[in-house]
């Protein structure tokens, strides 16, 4: 079975690194970057299954703008938004722009895995469903 291909975007390096390590340890192929611009570059190169995107990032491009661009380049890529600031308006805006769902920081790994499983399942292909099931098993184990 092919590992699901995930991109995590967050400006908080410690968070990004640790989360990537934890996902990789669970056999989830994970790339990571710290800004919206870099995320766009990576998305252009690779067709990720799911992008986990922090809404609030410094610099020119925040999560919402990045989401808009990602959806333009790869409409099939599912996006899960992360936010440390529970602004319902921003989250709703993200949902309207095509984000799959949002999670409130600090996140528990099992919550993220559950959302990833759901997002993969939604993609509909047999391969994705298998990936989704595998992740669900991980959730149960946690």
């Amino acid at each position, binding site marked *: 079975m092919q590992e699901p291909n995930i991109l995590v975007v967050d400006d908080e390096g410690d*968070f990004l690194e640790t989360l990537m390590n934890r996902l990789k340890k669970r056999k989830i192929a994970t790339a990571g970057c710290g800004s919206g611009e870099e995320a766009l570059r990576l998305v252009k190169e690779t067709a990720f299954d799911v992008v986990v995107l922090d809404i609030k990032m410094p610099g020119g491009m925040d999560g919402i703008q990045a989401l808009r661009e990602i959806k333009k380049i790869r409409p099939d890529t599912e996006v899960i938004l992360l936010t440390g600031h*529970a602004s319902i308006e921003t989250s709703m805006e993200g949902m309207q722009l095509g984000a799959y769902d949002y999670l*409130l920081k600090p*996140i*528990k790994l099992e919550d993220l895995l559950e959302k990833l499983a759901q997002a993969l399942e939604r993609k509909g292909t047999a391969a994705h469903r298998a990936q989704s099931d595998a992740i669900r098993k991980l959730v149960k184990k946690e």
Partner: protein
Amino acid sequence: MTRTLYSKLQWKIVVLTLIVTFTPLLLLGVVIYRQFAQMYTEKIKEQIRFRAESRADAVDLFLTERTAILGAIADTDSLRDMTDEAILSRKLAVMNLRAGAFVDLGVIDRNGQQLAYVGPYDLKGKNYFDQPWFEQVMSKGVYISDVYLGFRKLPHFIIAVRRQEQQENWILRATIDPDIFARIVQVGHIGKTGDAFLVSKEGVLQTKPRFSGGILQQAPVNPTLFGKQTMGYEQTGSDRRQTLFAGTWLKAKDWLLVISGDVESDMAELFATRNMQILIIGLGIIAIVATTVFTTRMMVKQLVQTETRMREMDAQLIQADKLAALGKMAAGVAHEINNPLAVILQKTGWLQDLLDEEEFRKSPNREEFGASVKKIEEHVERARKVVHNMLGYARRMEPRLEDVDVNRTINQTVDILENYARNNNIDIQTDLSPNLPIIAGDPAQLQQVILNLVNNAIDAIGRDGTISVKSMADTSQIRIVVADDGPGIPEAMQKKVFDPFFTTKSTGKGTGLGLWISYSIVEKMGGSLALQSRENQGAAFTITLPIVQPASK
């Protein structure tokens, strides 16, 4: 302090108003009364003077008439005829028929010897040579005597005329009836207490006054005070009664005709007016004092109320400002805290992951590490909850507008907590007004508020107690009261209960955000949340919501 200030203000206003009102009122009263009294006194004096003058004329006329008749009788008959007492008697009869008031008539020769006499007294043969009037009449020709006793030993006065017949001088003398004369004089008196009498220039009464003194006694007035003109003056008697006198000297005789009037009785009308004036002013003053005190009290009371209301509003504004600022801060703080929390949580997760690896499984401290990591995760979770509550508040800034059935919301909330309460032997009683209108609001938020309040009440009681939830409505607002019979909230803490992070619950049990959020929610709905409590007498929270009609659909 404020109370004394207002009390002072009240009295200042009262005193000032009274001074400003009374001064012109009293001044006006005094001036008008004085003017009126002066006019009235003038009028009475004038009246008495007029009476004295006219009465003097009448008395003068009486005396002149009598003198003229006597003269005419003397001139028409000879001494020889006149000494015939029958003729003399007839003369007296004619004189009384035509003029009256003659008592007797006598004929006296130049030696003072009475030659003939007709009258009631036995005076025949008396000699008048030594009488003072005899000399007067012999020298002047006509004489009116002062009142004297004479041979008859009764007060009387006479009119005498001298007749020169060839070489012979004789006198015709008549006595005037003192009663008739006195009556003519007394007709001049005014009113019930007024008097009229004649006084000789020596100050001896010539007629009997109506009330005090008798004929030939000293008169109550000093005739030397009266000049040629009719004059009036005022005199205070020994009994302190004021008497007005007016006197006119007669022309026919050096007698003073005096008219007197008692000031008090003559002025009775004036005094009645004065008393009425005093009564009206008195009543006016009472009315003014009462009105001034009443209106000032009302005004000051209004002022106090307004100030109290303003203070309350100020306090509410400050509280609202504080909470709004805290709301903004909460959102920022939440973000700043959530990011490190997210890192910590991932790091502990990673630690956990590593501990599961083979090399660590054998480590003697693995259990200890695992337990520590779990503890860290637990406390991150606690911090996360606090922040989420704060964010929850921030998120709840904009309530939705739906139809709210307040009673239903209360019942739903009580249902949720009933089991928990029963486990602690706490009875939740509801007393809901059936007439509550449906209002526009956010039912979920209202439920959260009620939930917070009832939950707090349960926590406050601990075990064994009663919580009452009541709803009621008037024309403009709905009130929900959640009351418990728990230990109550000390006064010092009452101001802080709505502040964020203020809690009396043990660490980890309460975040101290429940009342803060509830307060904010109710404020957002246009209402207010208030606390009434006394130590050891329970606490009651009152939610007041404006009745906002739902938009018609």
